[in-house]
C-alpha cells in the first residue's frame, strides 16, 4: 500500500541510481538512523550494551568485511579471527606508542595495518582457489595467533601475556578503559558501523565491486573481459581485512578491554563470522547485519529460555546451541542459499503488490 515506486518520479540520473530507489525505503533508512543516533544512546544501559548491541555492531563490521571477500569476491577465508587479532594488537601497539593521538585514528590505523597483512596472506589467492585457499587462510589464523602469543613485543612484555586497553577519550569522554559509559561505547561503534557500511554499500555498487563480482562468478571469464584478477583479488583482501581489523580493534579496545589472543580470536571466531554471512546472506550488506544480529541474539535467547526458563544446566544449553547453529547452516544452504537477505527481498517484492497481488 505504502511500499511502491508508483508516483515516485525520477528526474535526474543521480536520482535514478540512488541506493534506495523507493521512497518508503529511504524514509525507513533515515528513521533507523535517527532512532539509532538520537534515541538509543539515551535509553541504553550496561546489560543491553554489553550483551547485545555493542557485540552486534562490532560483528556487523566484521561480517561486512568477510562478506566483501567471500560473498562479493568469492574467496573463502577461514582466517577472520587471526585478522581480528591483528587489528586488536595493532590498535594496542598504536595506543601505547602514541598516547597523544586520538583513539579514532588508532583504530583506523589498526585497520590499515590489518589490510597490509591481509594483502600478504591474500597473495596465494592468485594461484589457488576455493577450499585450497581456505586452508591457506587457516595458516594465517594459526600463525598469527601463535605470533601474538609468543612474541612479547606485541603485548609490551606484560607478565600475563594479555593486552588491556588504557583509557582514551574522544572530546573528553572516555571510550576505552574501565570508566566507559555504555552510551559512549555504543556511539563510537555506531559511528564506525554507519560510515563503514555506507562505504561498503557504495564500493560494491561501483567499478571495484563489479570487478569483484565478475571474479566471483567466473574468474577466467572475468579475465577475458578485461578484469585484472590481481587487482580485484588483492583489493578485496585489502578492503575486507581493513574492515575486519577495525572490528578487531573495537572488539578489543571498546568492548572487551582486555584480551587473551587464543581465547578471543581463535578459530571459533572465524567460523562464527562465516556463519553470520551464510545465515545472513552471501553478497549482501543487509545480510551481514541480519546474520550478525541473529547469531548474537541466538545464544542470549537460548540461555534465557533454557537456563532461565526451563532450568537446564548451562553446558547443555551450550551444546544445544552448537546443534542448532549447525542445523541452521545446513537448512539455510539447502532451502535459502542467499540467507535472510533473500527472505527480506522476497518479502519486499510481496509487499509491493500488497494488498492486490494480481
Amino acid at each position, binding site marked *: 500500500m505504502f511500499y511502491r515506486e508508483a508516483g515516485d518520479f525520477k528526474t535526474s540520473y543521480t536520482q535514478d541510481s540512488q541506493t534506495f530507489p523507493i521512497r518508503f525505503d529511504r524514509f525507513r533508512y533515515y528513521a533507523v538512523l535517527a532512532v539509532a543516533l538520537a534515541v538509543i544512546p539515551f535509553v541504553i544501559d550496561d546489560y543491553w550494551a554489553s550483551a547485545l548491541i555493542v557485540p552486534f555492531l562490532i560483528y556487523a563490521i566484521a561480517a561486512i568485511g568477510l562478506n566483501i571477500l567471500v560473498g562479493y569476491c568469492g574467496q573463502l577465508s577461514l582466517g577472520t579471527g587471526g585478522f581480528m587479532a591483528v587489528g586488536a594488537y595493532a590498535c594496542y601497539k598504536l595506543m601505547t606508542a602514541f598516547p597523544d593521538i586520538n583513539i579514532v585514528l588508532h583504530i583506523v590505523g589498526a585497520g590499515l595495518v590489518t589490510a597490509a597483512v591481509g594483502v600478504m596472506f591474500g597473495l*596465494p589467492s592468485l*594461484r*589457488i582457489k*576455493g*577450499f585450497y585457499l581456505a586452508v*591457506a587462510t587457516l595458516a594465517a589464523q594459526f600463525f598469527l595467533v601463535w605470533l601474538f602469543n609468543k612474541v612479547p613485543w606485541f603485548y609490551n612484555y606484560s607478565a600475563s601475556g594479555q593486552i588491556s586497553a588504557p583509557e582514551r577519550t574522544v572530546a573528553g569522554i572516555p571510550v576505552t578503559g574501565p570508566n566507559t559509559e555504555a552510551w559512549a561505547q555504543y556511539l563510537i561503534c555506531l559511528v564506525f558501523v554507519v560510515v563503514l557500511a555506507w562505504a561498503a554499500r557504495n564500493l560494491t555498487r561501483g567499478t571495484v565491486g563489479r570487478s569483484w563480482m565478475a571474479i566471483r562468478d567466473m574468474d577466467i571469464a572475468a579475465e577475458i573481459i578485461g578484469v585484472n584478477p590481481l587487482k580485484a583479488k588483492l583489493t578485496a583482501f585489502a578492503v575486507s581485512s581493513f574492515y575486519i581489523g577495525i572490528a578487531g580493534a573495537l572488539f578489543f579496545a571498546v568492548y572487551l578491554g582486555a584480551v587473551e589472543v587464543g581465547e578471543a580470536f581463535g578459530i571459533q571466531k572465524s567460523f562464527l563470522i562465516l556463519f553470520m554471512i551464510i545465515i545472513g546472506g552471501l553478497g549482501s550488506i543487509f545480510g551481514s547485519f541480519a546474520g550478525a544480529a541473529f547469531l548474537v541474539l541466538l545464544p542470549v535467547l537460548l540461555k534465557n529460555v533454557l537456563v532461565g526458563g526451563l532450568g537446564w*544446566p548451562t553446558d*547443555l544449553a551450550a551444546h544445544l546451541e552448537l546443534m542448532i547453529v*549447525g542445523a541452521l547452516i545446513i537448512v539455510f544452504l*539447502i532451502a535459502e542459499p542467499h540467507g535472510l537477505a533473500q527472505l527480506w527481498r522476497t518479502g519486499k517484492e510481496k509487499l509491493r503488490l500488497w494488498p492486490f497481488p494480481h
Partner: protein
Amino acid sequence: MTNFLYAVEVMINGLMAGVLYALVALGFVLIFKASGIFNYAQGVLALFAALTLVGLQEGQIPFAHLINATLGTELHHFGWHMPALLAILLTVGVMILLAIAIERFILKHLVNQEPIILFMATIGLAYFLEGLGDIMWGADIKTLDVGLPQGGSMWIEEKTAVLGGDGFYGFFIDRLDIVAALVAAVLVISLTVFSQYSKQGRALRAVADDHQAALSVGISLRFIWVLVWSIAGFVALVAGIMWGAKSGVQFSLSLIALKALPVLMLGGFTSIPGAIVGGLIIGVGEKLFEFTIGPMIGGATENWFAYVLALVFLVFRPQGLFGEKIIERV
C-alpha cells in the same frame, strides 16, 4: 653423535604422528574422490565415533544429561560393561546409520551445488555432530581402552641403546604408534584392493570419474554415497580409536582433522598414497622443525607449521604431490 641420534628419534616419532594424520586424511580423500565433497566434518566424525565407542563400552545411557535435566531423573549407566569387539561392531553400525542420515537429509538436497557450498554444509554438519556427541555422551574427557598396547617399547629401547654413548638410552617409541602404523598400512592396502577389484569399488571409481556417466550405466549414486560415507565413518572410527587411546577422547580430537587439511594439500586431494606420504612429511617436518628451530622462536610451532608448509607448497604446485593436474575451462 648423540644429537644426531636424538634427531633420528624425533624423526621416527614424527613418522608415527604422521601415520595418525594420514589416517584422518584418508577419510577426506575417500569422500572427496567419490563425491567431490571436501568433508570438513571428518575430524568430528572421528570424535563422534570415539565418543560412541566409549559410551557403548561403559554402558552409558545416551542423552542421560538431557533426560535428567528435563525430567528430573537420576540416570547414568545401564550398568553393563560391553566387550571391546562388540562395542566396535555396534559403533560401526551407528556410523552406517549416520551415513544414511547424512545422505538422506543433506547430500540429496545439495546435488549439483558448487563445491564451496557443500564444503560449508559440512562445516555445519561438524557443528551439529559436535553438539550431538556432547549431548548424547557428555563433554568430559574420557579414556578409551580397547586393549591396545600402551607405553614405550622396551625392546626397541634396549636394542638401540648400544648405538649411542653413555647418555643415550635408546629410542623411545610408543607401542601404540607401532600398532597405528600397522593398522594404517592394512587399511590402505585393503581400501586399494577394494576399490581396484571389487564390484562396488569399481562403481565407486566410476562415480568419481563422472557422475552422469556412472548414472547412465545403472550405478545408484545414492547407494554409492551412503557406501562411501560409511567407509569414511569406519576410517574415522579407526582414527578415533588410535587418537583416543593416545590422548583421551576430547574435543581437541576434532582439531586433528584440521591438521589433515595441510596433509591433503601436500599429497593431493585425489590420491590415497598421497595422503599417506603427505601425512608422513607433515609429521616428520613439524617434529623436526620444533626440535631444531622451535626453541629459538619460542616453541609450540606445531600449531601452525603444517599450514604454512602447505601454503608455501601450494604456491608452487597447486595440485599437490600426487594430485591430478587441475584444468579449468570457461
